């Protein structure tokens, strides 16, 4: 168990190091930062001085280590576009993304699990077909397009829901649904198939023979065992949430880090790019580590591999 977690931890650290090298290289490949900061009026002397001040006269590996040291302390530099510290901008935007991802994650479980159970219990009925269709479509339809179509339907034509920005609960409905649909589809399929397996086992048959009411059989005896694979899979939907949130934030004008990153890329704002990429990477690595630990805890077979 300890060895397993240690390997995972090491893997996470290496992932983050590779990511930090990539963003470091990216800022060095695209022109001389000193020249960029200096502007048009600087002299050669100013240029040399500035280079020295920001450490550009040192060899590249040393510069990388300095960069890494700053990053670990949370210093990503100042955005040349807004003049604000990149960390402050990141911190300002981060809660919006985390909130949306959190709501979407809850929605994935709250809607996905019952729908999967319903599909399995009412196998081959209209419920099952609707559930399947919902799942298949959720995997195939591009989320950015679904988002635009829902804005058209619920925002413009029906006028029921707000379609942009962050605000009250109603602001979360559309973006959280679109963001969660893909993961929800996976959960529905998984819960359905593991529920069908469990419903076929001896102990469920026994519970039925004993004369327990069907609801009791399904929710008390079958569901508990059927839901374990879904819980572990839900960790995997996390990458999907991070993937989806860039496009969703753009479409719904949600003030999160996905939109910040895209904006940083189009404006070539390197401190912002570095801060958002590394924050997203860190978030991903930490949560997947937690999921792995949870997985090992739930499924003892994996610990001894």
């Amino acid at each position, binding site marked *: 168990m300890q060895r397993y977690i240690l390997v995972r931890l090491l893997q996470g650290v290496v992932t983050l190091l590779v*990511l930090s090298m990539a963003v470091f290289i990216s800022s060095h490949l695209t022109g001389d930062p000193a020249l960029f900061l200096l502007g048009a009026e600087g002299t050669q002397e100013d240029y040399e001085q500035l280079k020295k001040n920001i450490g550009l006269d040192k060899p590249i590996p040393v510069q990388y280590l300095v960069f890494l040291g700053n990053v670990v302390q949370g210093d990503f530099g100042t955005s040349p576009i807004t003049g604000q510290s990149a960390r402050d901008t990141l911190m300002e935007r981060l809660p919006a993304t985390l909130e949306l991802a959190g709501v979407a994650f809850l929605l994935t479980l709250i809607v996905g699990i019952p729908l999967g159970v319903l599909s399995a219990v009412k196998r081959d009925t209209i419920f099952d077909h609707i559930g399947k269709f919902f799942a298949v479509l959720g995997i195939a339809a591009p989320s950015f397009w679904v988002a635009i179509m829902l804005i058209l339907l619920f925002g413009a034509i029906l006028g029921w829901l707000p379609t942009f920005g962050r605000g009250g609960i109603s602001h979360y409905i559309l973006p959280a649904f679109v963001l969660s649909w893909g993961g929800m589809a996976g959960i529905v399929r998984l819960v359905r198939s593991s529920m069908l397996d469990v419903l076929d086992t001896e102990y469920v048959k026994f519970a039925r023979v004993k004369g327990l009411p069907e609801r009791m059989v399904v929710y008390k005896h079958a569901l508990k065992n059927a839901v374990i694979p879904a819980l572990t899979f839900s960790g995997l939907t996390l990458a999907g949430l991070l993937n989806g949130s860039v496009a969703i934030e753009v479409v719904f004008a949600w003030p999160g880090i996905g939109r910040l990153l895209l904006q940083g890329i189009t404006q070539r704002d390197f401190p912002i790019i570095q801060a958002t990429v590394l924050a997203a*990477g860190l978030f991903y690595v930490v949560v997947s580590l937690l999921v792995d630990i949870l997985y090992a805890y739930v499924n003892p077979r994996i610990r001894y591999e």
Partner: protein
Amino acid sequence: MATAINAELGPGWWRIAYRRTMNLKLPWIPVFIMLILLVCAGFSPLVAPHDPTEINILNGKLAPGENLSYPLGTDILGRDMLSRLIYGARTTVFISLVALGTGAVVGTAVGLVAGFREGWFDAITMRTADAALGFPTILVAMVIVVIMGAGIESIILAVVLTVWARFARMIRGDVLSIKDMDFVVAAKIAGVSMPIIIWRHIFPNTVNTLMIITSLQVGQVVLLEASLSFLGLGLPVGDPAWGIMVSEGKAVILEVWWLSLFPGIAITVVVLAFNYFGDWMRDALDPKLRRL
């Protein structure tokens, strides 16, 4: 020549071929959609009624069905929607083919060697593959775009970096179970070199897995390409790519709703077709992989 073959095959041959095809229980609707996609991609200049980039402001914002020369309407600049969709198919097929092909070759090669040699190469590549498997693709793509600039190469590289891992993982698993079989051991004893054993004796036995993963991945790749194009990280704005077309329609959705609607439907239908086809292939070739 042709008559000779026909005489030899006779009507019986056709009947057998027909029956064999029917016995495959092909998913006909997905196959039909895939054929349409391939025809549109391969012969776009012949199939498309208009030039997809031809601007004609006077014909702008024609609704679908308003003018039969433009059955799906035109966009703000008067470009024909149907022709743009057809050329978009070409973009999608080209990017998916190159990216998935490269990913498959790289992943298979890594998987074959890792499974056969084991040891440190196996440990390093498989840990890397694990990390690449779950990592958010859009993030990878965005870092690549920052380094290389927006463009078709960046999209392809981003897709390759994410899909190779699945191939490597699955192929390695296959190799582990094949390499201790008698025919491989016999080849080893006979003194056959490692590359030849891998290529002649092991690789042919992994082809089923390769085909299954490829067909299950196509849908994902199409979606990924579309999202990157939508975010403006791929082809230049104005090019006929489905993701870009959805994005162009976003700002004017209230007025010209068909701009975003049709390309989105095209993406969804194509991804659905490939997903169904992939499921069918998996069930037909290797029912053990059902849970994939």
